[in-house]
């Protein structure tokens, strides 16, 4: 064996070790996956659109600003055209992005808080706490979530707040079950036994040892939940149960359906916007699922 051979061998042997030492950031790990990167781009674009809505279209998007039924591309002032009342569709898309992202994220936050709270309590404290809270959870699960949300919004006045509340309180049960299963698993882990063995309080065990280890599946399902919440809001708005004071993609699709045969672009453009953001969130959730799974990263 020549000296050159030897150095080559030692170099190849050292290489995997070095790549192990170099710490990859979680974001880097996530964006190496094409689906996650695509989802990130779609969601980022939506976020930029939402952020710029007030700058590019400072007036109320519900104002009638032009001639009705202007097709996209006919008038450079209205790149996406106008609807039957002469409202700027592009302005609606920009401002609607705000509503969609706001409702999607806040409703998910509500669901995560309730779901993680109940899931943790039921998983950690067996006995009557578990029995009663799980019965409540099952009660919620027997009602179809969309109909439940519909009923809640119909009974209360439709507004951003009631829609967020309705979506939030109908989507936590699956999350609660997921968290409960994780907590049950961790509750019996050696790690938690050891923490009990040094006299740690329940609160500390839950906050320091259980939740941080149970959070990965919660993040994944929360990202999908945002998508579901956006779809639910759009469906409610389509049925006329959106907040009448704000423009929402669902309301725009709902309004456009009456002229679907003649001016299909009115319903289609906001529909495409919904598809993009929901697809983006699903791709991101998929990527998160892979990135948070340590078994997949070992490759």
């Amino acid at each position: 064996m020549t000296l050159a051979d030897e150095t080559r061998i030692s170099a190849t042997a050292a290489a995997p070790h070095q790549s192990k030492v170099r710490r990859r950031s979680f974001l880097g790990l996530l964006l190496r996956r094409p689906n996650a990167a695509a989802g990130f781009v779609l969601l980022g674009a939506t976020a930029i659109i939402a952020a710029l809505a007030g700058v590019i279209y400072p007036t109320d998007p519900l104002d009638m600003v032009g001639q009705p039924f202007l097709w996209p591309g006919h008038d450079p002032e209205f790149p996406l055209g106008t609807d039957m009342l002469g409202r700027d569709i592009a302005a609606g898309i920009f401002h609607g992005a705000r509503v969609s992202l706001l409702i999607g994220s806040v409703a998910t936050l509500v669901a995560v808080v309730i779901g993680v709270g109940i899931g943790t309590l039921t998983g950690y404290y067996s006995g009557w706490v578990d029995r009663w809270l799980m019965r409540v959870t099952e009660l919620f699960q027997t009602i179809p979530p969309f109909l439940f949300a519909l009923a809640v919004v119909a009974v209360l006045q439709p507004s951003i707040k009631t829609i967020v509340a309705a979506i939030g309180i109908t989507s936590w049960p699956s999350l609660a079950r997921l968290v409960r299963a994780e907590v049950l698993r961790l509750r019996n882990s050696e790690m938690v036994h050891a923490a009990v063995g040094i006299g740690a309080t329940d609160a500390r065990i839950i906050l320091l040892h259980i939740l941080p280890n149970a959070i990965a599946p919660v993040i994944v399902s929360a990202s999908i939940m945002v998508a579901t919440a956006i779809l639910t809001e759009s469906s409610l708005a389509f049925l006329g149960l959106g907040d009448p004071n704000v423009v929402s993609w669902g309301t725009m699709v709902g309004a456009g359906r009456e002229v679907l045969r003649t001016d299909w672009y009115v319903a289609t453009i906001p529909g495409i916007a919904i598809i993009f953001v929901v697809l983006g969130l699903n791709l991101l959730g998929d990527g998160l699922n892979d990135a948070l799974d340590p078994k997949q990263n070992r490759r």
Partner: protein
Amino acid sequence: MRAASPVLSVQDLSIRFVSKERTLTAVEGLSFDVAAGETLAIVGESGCGKSITALSLLGLVPKPGLVEARTIALEGRNILEFSEDEMRHVRGNRIAMIFQEPMTALNPVVSIGEQIIEAIREHEIISKKEARNRAVELLRRVRIPDAERRLHEFPHRLSGGMRQRVMIAIALACSPAVLVADEPTTALDVTIQAQILELIDILKKESNTAVVLITHDLGVVAEHADRVLVMYAGRKIEEQPARSLFQEQLHPYTRGLLAARPRLSTLATRERLVEIPGSVPSLAEMPVGCRFAPRCGFGVPACTAADPALVQAGAGAVACIRWRELSVAE
């Protein structure tokens, strides 16, 4: 028997698992004392009740389990009378435990320094900075090199032996009077085993801690225990100073255990290891009288007539009605 008064004194401990259908007795009538700076080894086969005994010392016997004893006195206070909250204050503070599996006993998402600091602050009101200094000191005491930097490491970057050292550091965080080590080295390599046990010995001497070492490894017992308690099917059948135990075993079971050890001579000749015939009786079907009688080569009808009482024998005690004649026959 000993000059020092015991730090931990267990009298007449019984652990039962009660359900509607039946009651299973895991441990019965177990008594032992451990003095400061002493290592008591509890040995026995799996299922003999040694691990559950260890858990009972910290009040951690799982739910349907019922712990009864005349007393489990830790530094003179009967822990059986403690409330759950008082018990929590004692755990990790006055009595601490090291578990079998260092690979899974540490939280993977929290740095080891954080975990040690948490353990200290659970029982003592001190500032984060002070706790941090104590954590560095503890890591040094368990011989972890470069302690200052290691504080920020996460468990997956440490080897099994290192993790067990961290576990020991956590257990010793509040200088407990009693350290319970439940097979602390079964998950580790033999060379690491020796290091860890040596470390426990050193730390024990430094701070005069009483150690209860649960093990099935007689080699470990020979090197690290001061006294040995042999359990069989939930009962103490023999207790002796470690040195005399290896010279003369009083109970036929203990004799069988020692005979079953592999030796260099048997390895060389590829002889079959000596075994104790049969297996441990299940908790549901305990034989009447001496529980070892069905497997014992020296059994006589009297053995199954009544429970053999624990009698003083030299520096130790044994629960066998024939121990005297058997030791004469030897």
